[in-house]
C-alpha cells in the first residue's frame, strides 16, 4: 500500500497549512524530513525543523503529529505537518515529500482508505463531506453529529429489533419440525408498527434537516420597480444590486446567501416581469421564470402605492401553488395603501414592509421560515440531513408497511419476510450490512434447534 500526501487545508495564503501523509512510509518520510533518528511519540504534537534531506536546507519550523496505525483517521500510519501557511513553503515541503516516495492523494482518497480499513462507514464519510461543505453553524453541528455515527447509533437499536422479528419468522419457517414457541401475529404486528413509528419520527426531521444542510433557495419576484432589489439589499445588508428608479435596471438574476436563524438562505433577485422592451431584458425575464421554478420559496413583491396589475395577479396565482410569502413594499410612502385584497381561498397574509427604512423586515424573516414548519435547530436532537438517508428510511417504512398489511391479511411468513428483509437492506445501507450468517447466528443463540 503506497503512501499518499495532500494539503489538508485550503490552497491560498493563511496562518498555517497542514500537509497530511498516510501509509506505511509516513514515518520514514518524517524521519528524513526532520533528520531525526528517534521516533515521535504518537498522538503528541511537537515542534521540529523541516529540512530538505538533499542539501540540508531549512524549509520551515513546523508542528508535527504522528498517529500510529491503527489509531488514525485512515487506520494507517498518518503524519500531519502544520507549516506556516505560505503557498511557497507548502509547495517546497510537498515537493520534498514527493521525492521521498509518497504520491499525491486523489480526491477523497484519505476517506476511501479510512472506509476500507473499517475506520468509518459510508454515513460517516458522507458526513465528513457535509462538514467540509457546511454553510451554516446548524449544518456544521448536524454534520459533526453524524461523523460520530449518531444516525447509525440511532438506527442500530431499531435494526436490531427488526432482526429480532426476522429471526422469529425465519426460525418458524426453517425449523418447522422443531419444538419452537408459536408465533403470535398480534405481537409481531405491534412490533412492526412500533418500529414504523420510530422510523417515521426520524424521517420527519428531514423536512428541517435538509434545509439546514442544503439551505433554502428563495426567489424575489415582482413587477419592475416594486423594490425587489432594495429588498434584496436590505435582506443581505449589502449594496450588491444596483438600485435606480428606472424600471428594468436588473437585467440578470443575482444571488446572495445569508443565515436566518442558523438556516442558510440564498436569495435571488430577479428582473422585473413585464412585457420586454428589448432583447436583453427579454432574456432576463426568461431567467426570472426559471429562478421561480427552481425556488424552494417564492417572495412576491407588490408595490403598495399602486393598483394590482395583470403581472401581479399572474405571480400571485403562481404563489398559491408553491411555498411563498407575499410582501407589500413601500409602507414609508405617503401614497401607500395596501392593494392586496386577501383572496377567500387563501390564508396568505401579506407582510408589509419598507425596504427603504427597514420596517417590517424582522416579521419578513420570520415569515420566510414559517412555511418550513418549526425551524429551530438548536433544541432539536439529531436530524436527517442527507437526501439518500431520507430516501432509504422512507423505503424502509414502505417495506415495513407492506409487511404489516400482509400480517393483517394472514399471509404466509415468507411473504411477510419480504418487507422485513427489504427494510433491513435499506437501513443496512446507512448502518452497514446484516448478513444471512448474522441472522442464522441469532437464530441458533435464541432457539434450541436441531433434531
Amino acid at each position, binding site marked *: *500500500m*503506497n503512501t499518499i500526501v495532500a494539503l489538508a487545508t485550503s490552497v491560498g495564503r493563511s496562518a498555517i497549512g497542514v500537509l497530511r501523509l498516510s501509509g506505511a512510509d509516513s514515518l520514514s518520510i518524517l524521519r528524513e524530513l526532520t533528520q531525526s533518528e528517534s521516533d515521535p511519540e504518537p498522538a503528541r504534537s511537537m515542534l521540529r525543523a523541516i529540512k530538505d534531506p538533499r542539501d540540508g536546507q531549512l524549509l520551515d519550523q513546523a508542528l508535527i503529529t504522528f498517529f500510529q496505525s491503527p489509531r488514525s483517521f485512515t487506520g494507517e500510519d498518518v503524519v500531519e505537518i502544520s507549516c506556516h501557511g505560505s503557498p511557497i513553503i507548502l509547495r517546497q515541503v510537498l515537493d520534498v515529500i514527493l521525492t521521498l516516495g509518497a504520491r499525491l492523494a*486523489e*480526491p*477523497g*482518497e484519505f476517506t*476511501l*482508505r479510512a*472506509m*476500507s*480499513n473499517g475506520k468509518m462507514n459510508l454515513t460517516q464519510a458522507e458526513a465528513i463531506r457535509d462538514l467540509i461543505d457546511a454553510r451554516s453553524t446548524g449544518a456544521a453541528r448536524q454534520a459533526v453529529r453524524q461523523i460520530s455515527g449518531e444516525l447509525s447509533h440511532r438506527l442500530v437499536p431499531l435494526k436490531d429489533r427488526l432482526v429480532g422479528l426476522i429471526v422469529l419468522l*425465519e426460525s418458524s*419457517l*426453517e*425449523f*418447522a*419440525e*422443531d*419444538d419452537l414457541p408459536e408465533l403470535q401475529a398480534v405481537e409481531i404486528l405491534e412490533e412492526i408498527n412500533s418500529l414504523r413509528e420510530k422510523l417515521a419520527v426520524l424521517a420527519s426531521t428531514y423536512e428541517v434537516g435538509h434545509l439546514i444542510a442544503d439551505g433554502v433557495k428563495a426567489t424575489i419576484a415582482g413587477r419592475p420597480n416594486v423594490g425587489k432589489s432594495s429588498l434584496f439589499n436590505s435582506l443581505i445588508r449589502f449594496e450588491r444590486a444596483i438600485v435606480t428608479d428606472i424600471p428594468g435596471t436588473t437585467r440578470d438574476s443575482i444571488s446572495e446567501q445569508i443565515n436566518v436563524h442558523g438556516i442558510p438562505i440564498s436569495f435571488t433577485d430577479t428582473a422585473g416581469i413585464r412585457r420586454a422592451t428589448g432583447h436583453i431584458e427579454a432574456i432576463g425575464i426568461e431567467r426570472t421564470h426559471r429562478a421561480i421554478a427552481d425556488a424552494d420559496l417564492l417572495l412576491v413583491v407588490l408595490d403598495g402605492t399602486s393598483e394590482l396589475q395583470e403581472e401581479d395577479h399572474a405571480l400571485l396565482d403562481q404563489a398559491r401553488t408553491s411555498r411563498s410569502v407575499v410582501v407589500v413594499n413601500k409602507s414609508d410612502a405617503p401614497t401607500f395603501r395596501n392593494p392586496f385584497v386577501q383572496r377567500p381561498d387563501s390564508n396568505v397574509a401579506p407582510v408589509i414592509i419598507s425596504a427603504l427604512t427597514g420596517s417590517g423586515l424582522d416579521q419578513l424573516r420570520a415569515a420566510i421560515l414559517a412555511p418550513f414548519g418549526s425551524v429551530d435547530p438548536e433544541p432539536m436532537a439529531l436530524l436527517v440531513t442527507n437526501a439518500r438517508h431520507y430516501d432509504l428510511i422512507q423505503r424502509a417504512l414502505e417495506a415495513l408497511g407492506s409487511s404489516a398489511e400482509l400480517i393483517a*391479511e*394472514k*399471509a*404466509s*411468513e*415468507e*411473504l411477510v419476510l*419480504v418487507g422485513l428483509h*427489504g427494510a433491513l*437492506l435499506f437501513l443496512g445501507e446507512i448502518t452497514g*450490512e446484516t448478513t*444471512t*450468517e448474522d*441472522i*442464522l447466528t441469532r437464530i*441458533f443463540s435464541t432457539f*434450541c*434447534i*436441531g*433434531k
Partner: protein
Amino acid sequence: MDETFDVLVIGGGHAGCEAASAAARLGAATALVTLNLDLIGQMSCNPAVGGIAKGHLVREIDALGGVMGRIIDRTGIQFRLLNRSRGPAVQSPRAQADRALYRKEMRATLEVTPNLHLRQGMVVELLVKDREIQGVEMQDGRKFAARAVVIAAGTFLNGLIHTGRRTYEAGRAGEPASIELAGSLRRLGFKVGRLKTGTPPRLDGRTIDWDAFERQLPDERPVAFSFSTDSISQQQLSCYVGYTTERVHEAIRNNLHESPLYSGKIKGVGPRYCPSIEDKVVKFSEKSRHQLFLEPEGHNTNEVYLNGFSTSLPAELQQDLIRMIPGMNEANIIRPGYAIEYDFVDPRELGSDLQTQRVGGLFHAGQINGTTGYEEAACQGLVAGINAARLVASRSKFRLLREESYVGVLISDLITHGVDEPYRIFTSRAENRLALRHDNADERLQPYGRFLGLVGDADWERFNSRRDRIAVLNHALENTRIRRSDKEYSGVAAVVEGDLGDSLTLAQLAKRSGVSAAVVRSLLPGELAQTAETADLESALANSLYSGYIKNQQAVSNRLNQHDSLRLPESFNYRGLSGLSREMCDRLERAQPQTFGEVKRVPGLTPAALSTLLVRLMAPSVS
C-alpha cells in the same frame, strides 16, 4: 498404470454416486473407487432425505438429471411435505428411507449405468504432474490413470471417532479412516481444517413402549421428489415423537466430564443446527424437555433411529440415559451414538465448477468442502461429475447461479465465504427464495439437464407436457373471472374474509386467505375443472401468488445493478487497492473482467471487495 479412465471418483456416498453416475452418462469412461462396494449409498446418519430447503435441493438434482430423487422415491417409507400450512415457496418434501433398500437401489442403479466401473479399495495417493491430476495410487499397489478426479471422501479423511474418553481412527463406525489420502492433500498444499459431526444411538424397536409416544402419520398424498415418479409404492410407516426429561438432563450435566466435547478433546467445529444432546442441555438449560423423533430404519429391521439425541458420551452411559426416557425404560441400544472429527479443505480454493485451482482436473464434492447433509453432498457431486466429464471432453464449464437455484446458492456461498462450521442449506440463504420453489425445479433446471445430456427423451417429453399444462392453467387463472351475478359467487364469498367486489379473476381470488386449490379448481372453465392435475394446479397457483413480489424484487435488484456498465481501465491494478485481499486480487486477475457487471460475476468476491472496487471506479479520476 493398471487401468485408464477419463474420470475417477473417490467415495461411494451421496456425492460420489451422483458424480460417477453423471460423468458416466455424459460419456466419460468413469471409475467409482470405494472402500466397500456393499456400502455404496450408505446413509451414515439419519435415514431420511429432504426437509426444508434440502428437499428443494433433491428436486433440483432430479431436474438436472441426478439420481437421488428417483432412489428415495423407490425406497421411502414415510413421505411428508413440510410447512404445508405455509406458502408453496417454503414447502419442502421429506422422506424416511429404508436404509438397506436405499443402498441396494443405488448400487443397482450404478451397476446398470454404461461407462461406469466400480472398483473396491483405498486411494492412498493423488498422482499430480505439473499441477495437473494424472490419476491415483491404491493401497494395494494398483495405479489408475484419470484425466479428472473427484474426491468425495465424506468423513473418512483423517476420521477420528469419539465416544466418551475413547477415540479411534475411523471413517465411520466400523470402517477404516483414510489417512494417507488426507496426507496427500496436505502435501499438495491444500488448506485443511477440522470439522466435527455426531450421530445418535440406534435402538431395538422391540424394546420400546410405543404407546408412550405420540404418533406422526405419513402424508395421505405423498409428494414425490422426482419429476419422473408417478406414484410411491413402498408401504408407508409412522414415526413417533417423545421428549427427554429433567432427570435425563441432570444425569447428562453430572457426566459432562465424560464428554469429549466438554473435556476439550474434540477440536473440530460442529454444526449449530444439529447440536448434541449435551449441547442442548448445557446451552438451553432453561428448557425442561427436548424433542425426540423415533424413526424406523426400514421394513426388515428392528433398528430405530433416535433423532434429536446425538451424543458422544460413553456407550454405557448412553444406555443408562436412554432408559430414563419415558417409554424407554427397557430399551436396548443396538449401535451407540458417537462424534467424528474429520478433515475438510477450504472451499474458497474452488471454482464454481468445483474444480480446485491448485490442481487442474481435481474436483472436490461433499463433506470435504465443509458441508453437511446427504442432499448438500449429492448436488455437489452432480455438479463436480458433470464438470469433470465436460473437462475431459474439452467442453465449457457448467455453473448454476444463485438467482436460479439452491444448488447455485450453496456453491456460491461455499466458494465465496468458505466455512467455519459444517454448512447446511436454508431457505433464508436464497435471496430469490420466492422464485425457487421445489415444485418448479423442473421449469428452472430441466432444460439445463436436457442440454447437458442427462435428461432422456421420455423425461423431456414429460417435462414439456407438464409445462404446457401449467401454461394452460396460468392462462385460465388470469382470464377467468367470477362475477357477483355468477351462481358460484355466494358460495365462494362465504369462505373468504372481506368483500370480494363485483368481479375478479381466479388468480386474484386465489391470493385471498381461505381460498383452497379445490375451490379454484371448481371454478375453472370447461373440462379443466375435472381434468387438471392437482400438482399442476398448485404450481400455477404458486406462480400467480408470487408473481407480483418477484417483479418487485427484480426492480430492487435492477437498482442494485445500475453500475454494471462501468468500465474498468485497461490493465487495472487491483494490487494497489487497499481493502482487497490477495485472494480477491488473484481471482480478479484470473477473470480479467471488463465491466463492473462482469466483476460481480467473478466467483468468490465478497460484498466488501465489490464496494471497494465500485467506490474506486466511481472516483473522479481513475489512473
